[in-house]
């Protein structure tokens, strides 16, 4: 990560989060924390994005939207699950409309702890994801065919484990 070749653009989606982590992600973009100094820009278009930042839990309604956004993002891509809800559903684990963390739907590269996650840890998470992104890019460049084959078959959609009926 000593030499940065890329400005990672993020796309943020609120999957049944309480807003706490979302406003902290927005706070990262503003002068106090200012992630734009790393070249990080929040974009609304999945095709422009390198890092998918998800907050909140998976439920029946937003399952497809998360998959849509993830599948539309070009390779290489990284996923950051922000907050305890995105990690494991946290305090809402036992709610009837909560299936679980984001990793039951798409592969997650970095988990950011906290309820709500603090801007410092979100920045740390995104910068870590950026290192992973570089790794993925290198693998893609050295063995393009293998990387394509590994990345092509999309995420495996699992049924929720006992969660939403």
């Amino acid at each position, binding site marked *: 990560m000593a030499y940065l070749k890329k400005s990672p653009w993020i796309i943020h989606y609120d999957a049944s989060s309480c*807003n706490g982590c979302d406003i902290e992600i927005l706070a990262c973009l503003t002068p106090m924390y200012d992630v734009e100094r790393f070249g990080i820009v929040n974009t609304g278009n999945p095709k422009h994005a390198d890092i998918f930042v998800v907050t909140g839990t998976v439920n029946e309604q937003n399952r497809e939207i998360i998959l849509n956004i993830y599948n539309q993002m070009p390779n290489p891509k990284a996923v950051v699950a922000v907050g305890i809800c995105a990690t494991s559903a946290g305090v809402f684990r036992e709610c009837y409309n909560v299936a679980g963390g984001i990793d039951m739907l798409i592969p997650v590269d970095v988990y950011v702890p906290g309820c709500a996650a603090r801007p410092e840890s979100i920045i740390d998470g995104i910068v870590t994801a950026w290192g992973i992104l570089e790794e993925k890019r290198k693998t893609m460049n050295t063995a393009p065919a293998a990387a394509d084959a590994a990345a092509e078959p999309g995420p495996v959609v699992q049924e929720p484990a006992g969660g939403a009926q």
Partner: protein
Amino acid sequence: MSKQVIIPFGPQHPVLPEPLHLDLVLEDETVVDVIPSIGYVHRGLEKLVEKREYTEYVFIAERICGICSYIHSNTYVSGVEQIMGLEVPERAQYLRTIWSELSRLHSHLLWLGLFADGLGFESVFMNAWKLREHVLDELEATTGGRVIQGVCKVGGVRRDISPEKLDEMVKGLKELEKELERLTNVFLYDRSIASRLKGVGMLGKEDAYYLGAVGPTARGSGVPIDLRQTGYNVYDKINFKPVVEMEGDSYARCIVRAKEMFTSIDIIEQCVKKIPDGPVDMKVTGAPNGEFFSRAEQPRGEVIHYIKGNGTKHLVRHRVRTPTFTNIPPLVKLLKGVQLADVPVVVLTIDPCIGCAER
């Protein structure tokens, strides 16, 4: 009649950090009908009262929404306290009022920033959020949390604020007030903002009342509802006037929020002057038996927590009616006749908080 087109707005849309889905029925560029659909962030947390004890449930109630978090926990605990007939120490009530107003201040600044961003004023967005960090610092210094405070509990509050810190807070807010004046001048006196917002997204006084608008949405249409006037916490000992604007357009709703921030600072100052010494919590035994409708004024309007207990540690029912939920029918009304390009801005004027609305 020209051809009608339906354009989907959301759930993932750059202007809103949250998933709200609207089907906009358009004739040319004009919106003629709006079909809202919600449920993207529904968690079903009201049902959790059956699994958590009523004292633990405060944490869940606080996590209904990350922006209005503090006021949710405050409303929930005051409901439980009313059922149990607890006389909460006065100092705790004053502290609750101070934190309520700090969280209103941070919410309004957040909104002002997002709204400016929606208008294309990115520098104002950045400045509003810079000032908001000051309020969040105060919240963090006094409660330990930035957006989720976790400081309310049944029977009082978890932390006291020392008199020195209170004075320092008032001093800090005085500084902030000057900065806020500069910031709100952009909204109050800038011609380009006024011409973009005046007459857009009209909601008449009658409509606002009958469609159940609450908070700044209602007050921007000349309906003077402010739950703080019912005098919960210690608002009955504080001298303040709700901000009411008569025009009912997007501009009026914007002005209401801009002016309310100064009211909040004023209320905090009055609280700091009047706060008595004493304990900040009390011992609570037993469990709530009975039911209560607890109401409070959130940054977005009136919130109602219905709480029913049967004398056991687990409540029977908890039901929340949040301001954004009741503001959706007025939103549908005020979007009709708006140009497509104005839709994001007009949606933002009701300050939608979907985390609250769907729980």
